[in-house]
């Protein structure tokens, strides 16, 4: 875990309200694993006061660079989008546990809703390094927001696009296409994908649905949760996630240390 003032290498608007920020942070690039995040100081004044958590989107270890894909949600991210080349950004990270990467030969599926693709893209890059291919379900509002399709295909993965308005791919929620396309574990449905392991990230409602489906289909998976991050280092206990423990019991785990990635079957949804 590092605390550094990193230099902005590039800031690019991908779409209105969506930015790709590349920072120079060699140690962070070297240490980062998919699913981990950085905690960034967006402004210099006392408002906004806290840092903002942004997932690592991909890294370039040779150049020592870390890239972040983020959406403007309010004050902090808006200030972040104003940073220009050569500006400094204080960052803390890499934080959190990240996705558990296996070196087996399971068939993998990735389910991303909206900006949830940000950390999953890093995972897809890492998978392709070892020639592993995933079935990628991508959900977005419309065709304009359906990003990175070409890049993901270029990594060798299969893309299943979905849009809320039907402007591209499947018309409907990404979880619905996943439900239709993926077979229950052990079934011999020839028309459906056989998947052994699923990684998911996206809005809370989508993840809840995905976890339900994974239970029904008896497929193990991991999901990355969003909770309000205060310190990012495990000290303040503000990022509590309800995790199943001992039958019907639960305990709060810290999204910033034990998470943000949790086993799909262990998350308690209200």
């Amino acid at each position, binding site marked *: *875990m590092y*605390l550094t003032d990193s230099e902005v290498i590039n800031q690019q608007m991908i779409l209105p309200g969506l930015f790709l920020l590349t920072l120079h942070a060699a140690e962070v690039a070297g240490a980062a694993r998919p699913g981990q995040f950085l905690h960034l*100081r967006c402004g210099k004044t*006392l*408002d*906004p*006061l*806290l*840092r903002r958590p942004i997932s690592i989107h991909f890294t370039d270890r040779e150049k020592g660079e870390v890239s972040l894909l983020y959406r403007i949600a309010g004050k902090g991210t808006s200030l972040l989008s104003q940073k220009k080349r050569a500006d400094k950004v*204080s960052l*803390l990270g890499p934080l959190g546990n990240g996705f558990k990467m296996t070196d087996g030969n399971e068939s993998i599926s990735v389910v991303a809703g909206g900006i949830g693709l940000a950390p999953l893209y890093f995972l897809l890059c890492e998978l392709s390094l070892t020639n592993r291919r995933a079935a990628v379900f991508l959900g977005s509002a419309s065709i304009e927001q359906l990003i990175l399709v070409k890049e993901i295909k270029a990594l060798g993965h299969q893309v299943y696009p979905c849009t809320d308005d039907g402007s591209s791919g499947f018309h409907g929620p990404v979880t619905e296409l996943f439900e239709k396309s993926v077979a229950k574990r052990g079934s011999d449905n020839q028309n459906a994908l056989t998947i052994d392991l699923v990684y998911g990230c996206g809005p809370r409602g989508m993840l809840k649905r995905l976890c339900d489906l994974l239970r029904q289909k008896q497929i193990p998976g991991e999901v990355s949760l969003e*909770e*309000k991050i*205060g*310190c*990012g*280092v*495990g*000290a*303040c*206990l*503000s990022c*509590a*996630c309800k995790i199943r423990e001992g039958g019907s019991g639960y*305990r*709060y785990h810290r999204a910033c240390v034990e998470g943000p990635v949790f086993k799909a079957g262990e998350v308690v949804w209200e």
Partner: protein
Amino acid sequence: MSGFAGNDETLTKLDLEVNIGGIRMKNPVATASGTFGFGPEYAPYIDLNLLGAIVVKGTTLEPRLGNPTPRLVETSAGILNAIGLQNPGVERFIGENLPYLAGFDVPVIVNISGDTIEDYALLAGKLSRAGGVAALEVNISCPNVKKGGMQFGSDPAMAAEVTRAVKQNTNLPVVVKLSPNVTSIVAVAEKVAEAGANAISLINTLLGMAIDIKTMRPLMGNVMGGLSGPAIKPVAVRMVWQVYREVRLPIIGIGGIMTADDAIEFILAGATAVAVGTANFVNPRATMDVLEGIEKYMVEKRVQNIYELVGAAHR
């Protein structure tokens, strides 16, 4: 910590050591309870040995799960929190967290909270026997739990009773942490002093809330929470000022300290030590920056002993 006052031939070593009611601190910079975990969380970023004291997360007799989320909401230059004293309970704290801290040359101050006076008494006894604890900080001011907590802190007689119960069950120095959610902070401080407190911590969080105007509902899971951060500093400085005038006990000043300048303000108002809270979240090195800044200020002001600054604004 050492530095040098003056840059002429009369180089003198800075003396930052303070004594908080029997707690010997090598410098006046501590961490505020609940903002620094149990220590290891910040060890990657600072050398814990350089701290004046470590005040750990509030401990209760039994483990506490804590409140539902959202537990934290940001407001202008501040945060509202309602963690609900999530902690593993005193037994596990002693077994699992305390041994780690024993590896450092820093006084460990354990913050305790209870639902009843009996709870406080039992906690005091257990922690005193545990070894490795330098002092107890009695939290009679947590706004985020249903029973006890702030209730004890807002009634001077109750505050005194809790203080006496703790004192009767420990030989350790007892620091009582007061709630700012009272009409007269001096009235509570006086009673707590009479009851035998060795020092006073000022302040805990201010009770507040925030509403989401889109959903028209309170933003926090617990509806209300405790406000901390720069937004509360003027209130905290005022309370330190008032208590310093009326009560002869060392004060640990807390509330919105982000920089050394903030800490110095507290010391000038009458605090002998300070504790850094919310600032740790923004800058994990905040305690070190505060400490270095205090040293620099002493050099600039040609002050050799930190005590020359304590309460200086009153003189």
